[in-house]
Structures are given as structure tokens and as C-alpha cells.
């Protein structure tokens, strides 16, 4: 039950962000500083989620070579403006190749 409530809260919050920005920005212009703050706060969150989500072995900072190579491959492909699907597939393929070789 609490999980459903969390989904509803997250959905309502996300919708409020979308609708609020569409409506309020139409009436009141966001200052460049506020826009930069929002953009960089979201960027920091996404970077943190990527770092937190990296599978670790045995806790701490322990990252296995296949995972390290997979993340590096994702960064390289994303840097070359690769599609999101291609980035994910590249990471998985790199992981499996290194795991197979090792």
C-alpha cells in the first residue's frame, strides 16, 4: 500500500513540476539564474543517480573491471551523442565482452 502511495506522490509531484512550469513560465519569465540553478541541480541529481546505481562488489567503492569498462563505454558512446538505447546496449556489450575475456 505504501508503495502505491509513493507512486501516486511521485506521479503527482512530477505532474506538478511539468504543469507548473508550463503555466507559470507562460506568465512569468524565469530569470537566467533560476533557470541555471534548476538545470544544474537536476544535472547533479542525475550524475549522483548514475554513480549510486553503478553495481559494486562487496560494498564500498569496489567496481569490477567489467563494470568499469561498461561505464566507460557508456560515457564514450554518450559523448558521441549516441542514442540512449545505444548507450545502454554498448554498456551491456562491453560488460559481457570483458567478463568473457577475463
Amino acid at each position: 500500500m505504501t508503495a502505491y502511495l509513493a507512486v501516486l506522490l511521485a506521479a503527482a509531484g512530477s505532474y506538478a513540476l511539468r504543469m507548473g512550469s508550463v503555466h507559470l513560465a507562460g506568465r512569468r519569465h524565469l530569470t537566467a539564474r533560476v533557470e541555471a540553478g534548476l538545470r544544474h541541480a537536476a544535472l547533479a541529481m542525475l550524475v549522483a543517480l548514475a554513480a549510486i546505481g553503478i553495481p559494486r562488489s562487496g560494498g564500498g567503492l569496489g567496481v569490477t573491471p567489467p563494470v568499469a569498462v561498461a561505464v566507460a563505454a557508456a560515457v564514450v558512446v554518450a559523448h558521441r551523442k549516441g542514442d540512449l538505447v545505444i548507450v545502454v546496449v554498448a554498456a551491456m556489450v562491453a560488460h559481457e565482452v570483458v567478463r568473457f575475456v577475463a
Partner: protein
Amino acid sequence: MRDALSVGVAIAPLGVALGAAMAKTDVSPVVAAVTAPLMVAGASQLALVTQLDAGATTVAAALAAVLVNLRFVVYGAAMSPRFTGQPRWFRLVGSHFVVDQTYGMVLAIGARGDVDDRDSFRHYFVVAGGLLVAAWSLSVCLGVVGGSLLPASIPLGLVLPAMFVGIVVPQLSGPRALVVAAVAVGIAVVPVSSNLALVACAVAGWIVGTLPVGEPS
């Protein structure tokens, strides 16, 4: 229509992989599946489910999921001129379709000079957004239901970080964004609660992003 179909086809594999990754957690498959049509944001959906799986409280998990979507404020603000003067029903329904892909599509039609008048934009956005949400929801459900049929050797644990890397790296243009990313990584690897780390990163990102350093006077 063609834009929406091509984007829908492109996001389907990601939706299936995301659904399969969420199915690997202890969170109910129904809960994982309903996140798709209600939230329409893969990163946020996965953040919510993984936070719940890690034992976060209801509010903390929801807050983390919402904070991930802060970028929608920028998208919504950028798209607001297209929504001005539109019927109320469209502003309410269309807001739900403000996502990474539709933002990209609106930027693209703006660059092409297509879909200029309000009526054609409304038609375009409802069709594109509706198809996108339908394709996303269906593919996530397929992943949740059929994820167990995927070979165990597929490293689904990489879907989350790779997806975030794919969203973040193209945005790392300029020294300020790189500093924000470095600070965020520094905070994220500290072994504290992930909720605390996420909030600290959002605050740090805001501070670094608004510092009056390196700006022309």
C-alpha cells in the same frame, strides 16, 4: 506521427530493459508497471522503485523520484510559449507529455520551422505524446511481465547507470557543468544514505549553477 512512431520504436527496448530491471527488485510488479503511464520518466521510475526496494520511506522515495525530474521545469518553461493561448484541456493533458523525447521533438520542429500554428501544434503534441506514453507503458509492462524470460547473463544492473550516463554526458558542456558533475560524484561515493546524497547533490548543483563566477560583467 512519423516523429512519434520513430521515437516510440527507439524507446521500446529501453522500456523493456527498464521493466525487467524493476522486476528484479522486491517491489510488486504491478507497482513497477503502473509507474510507466503515471510518471512517464524512466530515470524517475527506476529511482522510485530502487529506493523503495532499498527500504526508503514513502515520502523519501517519492521525493527522490520527483527531484530527478527537476529538469522538466526547464523543459516546461521552454515549451510554455507553445502552450500559451491553447484550450485548458490541452494545457492540463499536454503537461503530462512533457518528457525528454517530446522536448527534443519540439526543439526539432522549431528548428525545421514546422507545426507553427496553435491548432497544428496541439494536434501534433497530443498525437506524439499519446503514442509515446502508450509505447512506453506497453514496453515497460512487457519488461515487467516477461523480464524473467530474458537470459540471466544480460547485465540488467547496468540499465540504470547507463541510462543516466546517456542523459547526463551530452549536458556536460562547459566548465560549470563539469564542476557540478565532479562535485556530485564526490558526494555520491560517500557511504551515506542515498536520499541524503541526492538532496546534497541537488543543493550543491544549485549553488554551483548559480555562482556568479566566470560570467561576463
